C-alpha cells in the first residue's frame, strides 16, 4: 500500500528545495541586472580613472 504521508512529505520537500534554489536564482538575476545597471552608469568613469585619464 502506498504511504500517502511519506509521498506528501517527499513532495513538500521537493517544493521547499526548489523554492530555495529559486531564491538563489532570483538573487542572481537581481544582482546581474543591478550590477549591470551600476556598471553602465559608473563603468566608463571608473575605467577612465583606472587608465589615469
Amino acid at each position, binding site marked *: 500500500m502506498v504511504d500517502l504521508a511519506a509521498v506528501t512529505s517527499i513532495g513538500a*520537500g*521537493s517544493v*521547499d*528545495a*526548489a523554492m*530555495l*534554489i529559486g*531564491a*538563489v*536564482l532570483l*538573487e*542572481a*538575476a537581481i*544582482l*546581474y541586472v543591478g*550590477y*549591470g545597471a551600476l*556598471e553602465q552608469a559608473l563603468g566608463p568613469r571608473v*575605467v577612465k580613472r*583606472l*587608465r*589615469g*585619464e
Partner: protein
Amino acid sequence: MEILGLGLGMVLLFVGFGVLIGVLFGFFGMGGSFLVTPALLVMGYPTRVAVGSGLAFVFGTSVIATLKHRDMGQVDYKLGVLMIAGTTAGIEVGKEIVIHLESLGMAGSIISVTYVVLLGGIGAFVTYEALKGGGDGGIDHDTADAEADVDDIPDIAKKIQSYRVPPMISLRGGVSVSLWMILGVAFATGLLSGFLGVGGGFIRMPALFYLIGVPVPIAVGTDLFEIVFSGGLGSFLYALDGGVDLSIVLPLLAGSAFGARVGSAATSIVDEEEIKVYFGLMLLGGALAVAVREVGNVYNIDVLNTVSLVLILGSALLVSGAVVYSSITALREESRSSSPA
C-alpha cells in the same frame, strides 16, 4: 546588528570572500566549491551544509558569470550541451567506482592521492606551458569570435582534431572536432569529477582548451554554462536534505556577483600568459593544501586543517589580486599607447 541571523562582521566577511571567489570564477571558470566548502568546514559548519551551500553558491555565481560571458559571445551552447551529456555519464561511472572502492575500504586514501596528483599535475602543466610561452597555450583572451590561429592550438588538441570520425561538429573559434572525441573528453572529465566529488571546473576548463582546442575565453564561458546545470542539480539534491543555508549563500553571492563581473571583464583585457602562471601556482597551492589537510586527518592534527585553509585562501587572494592588478596595468598601457606622442 544582525542580517539573516548573522552578525554584520560575518556578513561583510562573506561578501568580501564572495568578491575574491567571483573574480577567479569569472576569469577562470573555476574555483567555487574548491574554495568555499573547505572554508565553511573550518568555520565549523556541518559537512552537509558546507557542501550544499557551497554548491548553491556556485550555482548562483555561475548563472551570473555565464550571462556576462554570453554578453561577450564566449559561450558555445552546442559544445556545452554535448559536454553535459558526456559529463553526466562520466559522473555516474565515477560514482560507481567510488562505491566499489568504498566496499573494499580503499576509497578515502585513493581519492585523496588522486586529487592531490591531479590538481598538482594540472597546476605544474599549466605553469610550465605558460612559462615556456609563445607556443601551446598562447591563445589570447580576446580571440573569442576570431578563428583560432593554428599555431595557438595545443599539440594534443591538434591530434584529437585530426581524428575525423563523423559526425564532425563545428565549434566557435573555427574549430571542428569529431562528436565522439568531444563525448570522450566530456566522459573522462565527468568520470574524474564524479570520482573526486568535485565540480570539475579545474579539470574541464583546461580539457576544453588543451584537448578539444577551443580558445580560452570560450572554454571558460562554456565551462561556466555547464556548471549552471551541475551546480543547480547538486544544490537541489542537497537542499532536499536541508543542506543549503541561505544566510551563507546570499551574502557570498552578493560579493561574487560583483567579483564575477570584474573577472569576466578582465578576460578581454589581461594578457593571459601572465595570469596562467598564477593560475598554475594556485592549483599547486591547492594540491599542497589538500595534502596538508589529509595528513592532518590521518594523524589527527587539527592545526593542519587551518594551515590548509590559509594555503587555499592565500593562493586565491594572490591570483585574484594578480588579475585585478594586471587589468589595471593593461588599461594604463593601452591608454599610454593610444594617446598621441
